[in-house]
């Protein structure tokens, strides 16, 4: 009778991971990274602060371009569409869907009822030279301070302040 030797495994096992295993691991890792990235960007875009920062940056760009380049570079904020842009350049930022933007002002004219305002700067001084609210020109002497409020769904708020007499603007948190 022929004895069949049972299969004996070699002492050392040199087999690593299979290609399938590696692919599965890589796929899972990439899904996790993707989810984390999306959630982080969602979290930050939801934020009123980053929205106000974006508006402030666009305002700064419009002012700087007016001071340094030829032609008009007006800042337009449309609260109904949720976007701010520089016209006629066309650059701008979209307001995240979870943030609501509104206006208010200091002075004898109240901007809070308006949905679209356009702001033009003076070419030599950078002061605010013209404000148009819903296509109606506003007397600049009646508006000392323009506030653009960004309020997110979770109640966080940040405000862009624009001083019309000097063109100075900044973000106020809280």
């Amino acid at each position, binding site marked *: 009778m022929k004895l069949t030797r049972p299969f004996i*495994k070699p002492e050392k*096992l040199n087999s690593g991971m299979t290609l399938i295993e590696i692919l599965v691991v890589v796929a899972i890792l990439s899904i996790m990274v993707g989810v984390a990235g999306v959630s982080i960007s969602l979290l930050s875009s939801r934020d009123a602060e980053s929205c106000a920062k974006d508006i402030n940056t666009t305002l*700064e760009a419009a002012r*700087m371009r007016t*001071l340094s380049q030829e032609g008009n570079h007006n800042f337009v904020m449309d609260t109904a569409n949720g976007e701010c842009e520089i016209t006629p350049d066309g650059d701008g930022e979209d307001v995240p869907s979870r943030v609501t933007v509104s206006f208010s002002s*200091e*002075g004898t004219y109240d901007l809070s009822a308006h949905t679209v305002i356009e702001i033009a700067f003076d070419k*030599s*001084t*950078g*002061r605010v030279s013209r404000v148009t609210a819903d296509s109606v020109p506003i007397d600049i*002497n009646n508006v*000392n*301070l323009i506030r653009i409020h960004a309020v997110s769904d979770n109640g966080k708020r940040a405000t862009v*302040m624009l*001083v019309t*007499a*000097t*063109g*100075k603007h*900044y973000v106020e948190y809280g």
Partner: protein
Amino acid sequence: MKDNRGLSLVELLVGLALSSIVLVAIGYLLITGLRLSGRNNAHVEVQNEAQTTMNLIIDNIMESRGICAVNSAAGADTQCILLGDLLIEASGGAYDVYFSGDAVVTDIHTLGADGQPLGEMYLVAFPNQDFPEDGGKPGYCKLLGGVSVGGTDEAVKKGTVAQSAWTLIRDYVTGLSQAQRIQWLLARYITGCTITVDDFDISGVTGDYYKETTYYWNGDTEDTYYYEEPMTLQISIDLEYDYGNGTVTRNLTDSVALRNRLNQVYVGDGSAMYEYKLKK
């Protein structure tokens, strides 16, 4: 027979050590990058702030038709400079003061709500302000009415009145709350601001500014103060911005010559203010 052996402890430890080294390296890179971008943003912010402020001030100075300032070389930080028409009119032995133009006021010392100095600069446009004085003229704001000062020299008397107007505007702005002042905000993060009148040396005879005494036949004397064109101002602004991981400081210095024919020049030397006339 299935091989159920997993990783050995040593292998696991080596793997953990290697991955932690890699993670630490990545984290370090990330933090360095974030810090660098924060610092760069702060530099850009401060530079923008300094540059736009300086541009606006210089633009204002070059356009102005009159000036009222305290020379910083003689005193502390300039807290106020009036650029525009400061009319001082004699009426029945006293003076009425009107102003049309811009006042640049710096408040470095007042503490804000957070207990830190405000460090703000304002640009207040006249006649858009409500001053209680009545009987103004169109296009002007009446600052003071019926001010009487002693002395005989017209230049000294008018200078003293100008200094009261200068002090009035400075105190008017710095006396308001931060929320009320915001409508004039020109710059933030200011830690120092000096405006120096170049070659201002009233006691020296050879300088661009000098005093001449006229002797009358009855023994009276009158002092007149003169300046020579062009009048040059040295402006220096210090800024400091705290961006969380450190501070960025910036100094911007520029000099500007007033080319317009100035209607009124009032310069103080820290103790008194005089009216200056152009030496023709």
